[in-house]
C-alpha cells in the first residue's frame, strides 16, 4: 500500500512538474528555454527527488546527503521543478528562473546552500566530477551515493568515456549514471548524427546496466533499487523529448524555444486533458 502511494505521489508530482515547466518557460518569454529536454526527464527527476535520493530539504548541505549532479545542464527546468516538489526550494526561488542575475539560470550553477551540487551546461564533465566524489566517499568510508544524469547526445563527448573507464576500474559501486535516452539532440535525431548502441557500449565497459521506460515511475523505481555488484551502475531511461505535449514531442524545434501565450494555453489544455494518467501503475 505504501509502495503504491509513493508511485502515485511521483505520478502526481510529474503532472505538477510539467505544469510548472510550462509556466516557467512561458514566463521566460523571449529568452526561450530548453523545454523538450526538461520534459523528457520529469519522471526520472520525480523518482529521484521524491523517493530515491537521501536528502534533507531543511539542511541542503547535510554531509551524508546523496549527491545528485545534472550533467545535462539544459535539463535545468526539470531539475528546478523537482527540487521544488521535494521542498528544497521555495516557489519564489522557482519563479526566479531565468531572472537576470538570479540563482536559477538556464543551466544550473553550483550553489550548495540551495542544494545545487554542480554547474551544468558544458556537456561531458559531470560524470568525472561524480566519479571523483564517489572515489572520495569510498576512501572516507561515507555511505552516501552519487547520481549523475546525462543526455544520450552528451555521450558523444569523449571525456564521458574516460570517466566510464575510471569508475569501472575503481569499482565505484556507489555511483549511478542515468541516461535520458530521448534519441534526439540539438540538431535532430541521434540516429542521424552519431548512431551508437548505448546499452552495448556501457556493458562492454563493465558497468551494471539496466534499462527502463523513462516515463514509467514504477519501472524507474525498480531500476534505482540497490546495486549489489562491485561495479558502477547505469540506468538507460528510454524517454521522449518534449514528453506530454504533442506538438513538442520528438521535435527538434523544442530543444530550445520560446513558449508564446497561445502555445502555452494549448500545452496546458493538453496536460489537463491527460491528467498524467497515461503512466499508470
Amino acid at each position, binding site marked *: 500500500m505504501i509502495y503504491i502511494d509513493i508511485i502515485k505521489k511521483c505520478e502526481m508530482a510529474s503532472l505538477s512538474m510539467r505544469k510548472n515547466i510550462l509556466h516557467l518557460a512561458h514566463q521566460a518569454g523571449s529568452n526561450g528555454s530548453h523545454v523538450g529536454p526538461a520534459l523528457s526527464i520529469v519522471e526520472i527527476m520525480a523518482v529521484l527527488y521524491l523517493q530515491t535520493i537521501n536528502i534533507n530539504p531543511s539542511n541542503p548541505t547535510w554531509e551524508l546527503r546523496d549527491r545528485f549532479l545534472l550533467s545535462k545542464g539544459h535539463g535545468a527546468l526539470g531539475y528546478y521543478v523537482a527540487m521544488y516538489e521535494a521542498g528544497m526550494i521555495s516557489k519564489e526561488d522557482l519563479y526566479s528562473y531565468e531572472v537576470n542575475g538570479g540563482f536559477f539560470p538556464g543551466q544550473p550553477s553550483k550553489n550548495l546552500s540551495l542544494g545545487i551540487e554542480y554547474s551544468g551546461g558544458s556537456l561531458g564533465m559531470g560524470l568525472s566530477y561524480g566519479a*571523483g566524489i564517489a*572515489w572520495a566517499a569510498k576512501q572516507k568510508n561515507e555511505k552516501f551515493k552519487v547520481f549523475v544524469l546525462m543526455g544520450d547526445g552528451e555521450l558523444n563527448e569523449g571525456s564521458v568515456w574516460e570517466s566510464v573507464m*575510471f569508475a569501472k576500474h575503481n569499482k565505484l559501486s556507489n555511483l549511478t549514471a542515468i541516461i535520458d535516452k530521448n534519441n534526439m539532440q540539438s540538431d535532430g535525431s541521434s540516429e542521424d548524427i552519431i548512431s551508437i548502441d548505448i546499452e552495448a557500449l556501457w556493458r562492454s565497459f563493465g558497468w551494471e546496466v539496466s534499462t527502463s521506460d523513462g516515463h514509467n515511475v514504477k519501472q524507474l523505481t525498480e531500476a534505482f533499487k540497490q546495486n549489489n555488484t562491485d561495479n558502477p551502475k547505469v540506468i538507460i531511461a528510454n524517454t521522449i523529448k518534449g514528453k506530454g505535449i504533442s506538438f513538442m514531442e520528438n521535435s527538434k524545434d523544442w530543444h530550445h524555444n520560446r513558449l508564446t501565450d497561445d502555445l502555452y494555453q494549448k500545452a496546458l489544455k493538453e496536460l489537463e486533458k491527460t491528467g498524467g494518467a497515461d503512466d499508470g501503475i
Partner: protein
Amino acid sequence: MEFKRTIIRTLSILGQRGAFGYALTEIAKINDEIIALTADLCTTSGLDRFKNAYPERVVNVGIAEQNMIGIAAGMSSLGYIPFATTFANFAALRSCEQMRHFMGYMEENIKIVGFGGGFAMGMFGITHYGIEDIASIRSISNITILSPADGLETAKATIAASQFKGPVYLRLTGVMNHPIVYKEDYEFEIGKAIQLKDGCDIAIFSTGGMVHQSLQAAKQLEDQGISCKVVNVHTIKPIDKVAIYKALDTKLIVTVEEHSIIGGLGSTVAEVLSEIKEKPPQLTIGVSGEYKPAGSYEFMLEQYGLTNNHISEKILEKYREAI
C-alpha cells in the same frame, strides 16, 4: 618545513619535478587530505617517492587529462586537496575547458601541476613543449598561477599551494640539476615578487628557469657598467603591481620567460604598465615566431635566444635605443 643547505642542494639536483615530489611527500606526512593524481605519468611527475610512501593516496586516471581535472574537483568537494599532475601543455591546453569549468567557474580547491613548462621536454618535441600554458590559463578567473625559480622555490610553492584555499596552477620548468637561485631558505608569499638584486638602470622581471639566466645576464651587463635590478616573479597571477611600480624610475623594463611572448609574463607586465602615463619602454624576451625544430633543452634555449648571453645582448641593444 625547514630547508637546510643539504636539502637545498638535493632539491636542485632533483630539478623542479623532483623537488615538487619531495615537498608533496613531506606535506602528506602532516596533512591526510593530500592526494596526488597522475595521467599515466607518475614517475615523470616526480611522484615515485610519494607513491612509495602513500600508495593509497596516488590515483592514476590513465591517459585522460580532462577526466583527471573533473575527478580532482569531485575529490575536493569532500575536503581532499588534490594535486593533479601532467605536462603543462596537456593540462592547460587539452584540459583547458575543464580548468575553466572546475577551477575558474566552480572554484574547486584543486592544484594542477604542469611540468615541462617551456622546453624541458627537449627531444620529446613540440607536442610536449609548454609555451602557451600561462596565456591560456591566465585569462581564466580565480586561478592563481605560480612559477618557481628553482628547486627550493618549487618546494616552497608546493607548500604554499597546499595551504592556499582556492585553485592553483603550479608551472614547473627546467630539467634535473637545476641551477640554484636561493642558497638559503627565505620567505615565500603568494603574490609577492622577490627582488633578488638591486639596480637603477634596468629592471628585469623574470620567472621560472629564466630567473637564473636573468641573474647571469644582469652580471654581464654590470660588467659593462649598466646597473640591473632583477625581480623573481614567482606568482604570475595575481601579479605584484607594487613590484612593477617600483621599477618606474629605471630606463628600461625587461621581462624574461620560457613562454610565448603573447599572454605570459611580458603581457602581464605590459597590462600593468598600460595604466601608467609616464613609464620606461619595455622589452619582452620569450618565445616568439614559428615552432622551430625540436632539440635538447639547451639547444632550444639557444635557438630561441633564452640563454644568459642572448638575454644580455638583447637587453643591451634595447637599452642603447632607450637612453
